[in-house]
């Protein structure tokens, strides 16, 4: 594989960039694979990459209905963080942070990981106490956390509304300085390029229409491009999980909902980190191009539409305006939606299933992008070893029946409530 570097860039400039190697091939599906990963998003591509790299399983196919990177990995707001209170979530995502820090070098693809920090704002004493508790939990798990008072927040985001008349005054906030953002498309492409180089077949525009299960064991899948035999199959399809689960007669603790995001016109640099509003569901960061990237609540009803309605955008931006009044003078560039696999406790599921050889990776709710590397890493381990890794030992499917929920946000089973 051609290595990307400043020298290859200069060399290719002489031929007007016409002679770059293709980053990944477009193979026709073989009749049999050791592992088939369904879903060519970030998590699926990362899983295939770590299967090849960490476990030397290279007879792998990724089956994608659309094109790679066209789903949620290209629709998220690129936030990367590990500011969780529960041990299971904190350890899992902090392991992921370590993967993020080396990802550009490892993939030889600039994913533009930028640890610019995230601030969760507090608007009451009670919220400050809750953040102090969360910050302490994070520190016990080796994650950097800083409790900021009002003046410290003001130094970092002076453009926020610090006047006396505001309905929700800023009391302070909890900051994770090592959190940040990355270029989401590059993550998908970087994983795809390396996985392809190690022998993984990336098969796009191929829809899974059914499964071959004999005596409780997976034998293969049926697709729009023919039947494919497989010893093991991994589902990595986010919002489409329930569609495939229905073909397997499985019921899951997942509902699919639409989540919208939006960006403004590009402006000069003014916000260097990620900020979340503590009195409503609104978060914001500024992209390297200068656009303000914003998001918030789900639309709040089951949806597979990949597009939402205006009232939710209006509601989210009302919160945004309360925090950053300058937003009212920006033009909105575009809004879009992605479909989320909302689990019933708000935490993901990476596990085996009751069908031998069938593995499940779902339930990412609002935050799948940040976990892309660690999700792929642990899912690859789970598939290769046929057992969960310590990191995902609490992210199991049976936690709902045994009562060991990871209800980080305490929303109960109505995760569509903002």
């Amino acid at each position, binding site marked *: 594989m051609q290595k990307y570097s400043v020298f290859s860039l200069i060399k290719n400039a002489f031929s007007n960039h016409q002679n770059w190697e293709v980053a990944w091939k477009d193979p026709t599906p073989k009749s049999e694979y050791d592992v088939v990963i369904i879903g060519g998003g970030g998590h699926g591509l990362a899983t295939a990459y770590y299967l090849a790299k960490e476990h030397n399983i290279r007879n792998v196919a990724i089956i994608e209905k659309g094109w790679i990177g066209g789903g949620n990995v290209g629709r998220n707001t690129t936030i990367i963080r590990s500011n969780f209170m529960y041990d299971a979530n904190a350890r899992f995502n902090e392991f992921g942070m370590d993967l993020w820090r080396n990802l550009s070098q490892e993939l030889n693809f600039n994913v533009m990981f930028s640890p610019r920090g995230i601030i969760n704002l507090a608007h009451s004493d009670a919220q400050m106490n809750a953040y102090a508790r969360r910050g302490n939990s994070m520190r016990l798990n080796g994650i950097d956390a800083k409790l900021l008072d009002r003046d410290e927040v003001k130094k970092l985001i002076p453009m926020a509304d610090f006047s006396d008349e505001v309905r929700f005054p800023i009391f302070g906030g909890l900051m994770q300085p090592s959190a940040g953002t990355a270029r989401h498309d590059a993550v998908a492409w970087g994983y795809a390029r390396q996985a392809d180089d190690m022998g993984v077949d990336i098969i796009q525009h191929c829809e899974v229409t059914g499964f071959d299960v004999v005596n409780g064991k997976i034998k293969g899948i049926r697709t729009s491009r023919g039947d494919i035999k497989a010893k093991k199959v991994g589902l990595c399809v986010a919002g489409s999980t*329930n*569609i495939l689960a*229905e073909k397997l007669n499985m*019921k*899951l*603790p*997942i*509902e*699919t909902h639409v989540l919208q995001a939006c960006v403004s016109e590009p402006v000069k640099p003014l916000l260097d980190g990620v900020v979340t509003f503590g009195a409503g569901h609104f978060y914001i960061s500024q992209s390297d191009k200068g656009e303000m990237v914003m998001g918030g609540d789900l639309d*709040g*009803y*089951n*949806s*597979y*539409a990949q597009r939402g*309605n*205006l*009232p939710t955008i209006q509601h989210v931006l009302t919160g945004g305006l309360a925090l950053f009044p300058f937003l009212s003078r920006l033009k909105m560039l575009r809004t879009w939606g992605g479909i989320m696999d909302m689990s*019933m406790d708000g935490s993901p599921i990476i596990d085996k299933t009751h069908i031998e050889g069938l593995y499940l990776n779902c339930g990412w709710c609002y935050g799948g992008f940040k976990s892309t590397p660690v999700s792929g890493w642990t899912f690859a381990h789970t598939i290769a070893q046929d057992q969960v890794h310590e990191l995902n030992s609490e992210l199991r499917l049976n936690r*709902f*029946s045994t009562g060991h929920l990871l209800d980080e946000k305490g929303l109960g*089973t*109505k995760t*569509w409530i903002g």
Partner: protein
Amino acid sequence: MLYIKCPYCGLRAQKEFSYGGDATVKRPNINEEVSSEDWDNFVYMRKSPRGKHIELWQHIAGCRQWIKVQRDTATHEIFQTAKVTEEIR
């Protein structure tokens, strides 16, 4: 914006309603032995189909009644609405 026909008040904007989830989920009968599998199915497991979905909404900024709505989860088209005591077929 969705427009939902409340069986009590008529056609109203989605903003007046709040969502209550899958209306076909049945609570296990009271005063009967409930297996943990049944309880699991009631509390957590959802079909979440792509296509026609019968769901509960509450007309929270109107008559405050709970209603049933049959809606397409892919196109957001609303086919039918009914009182909670009525069946949607």
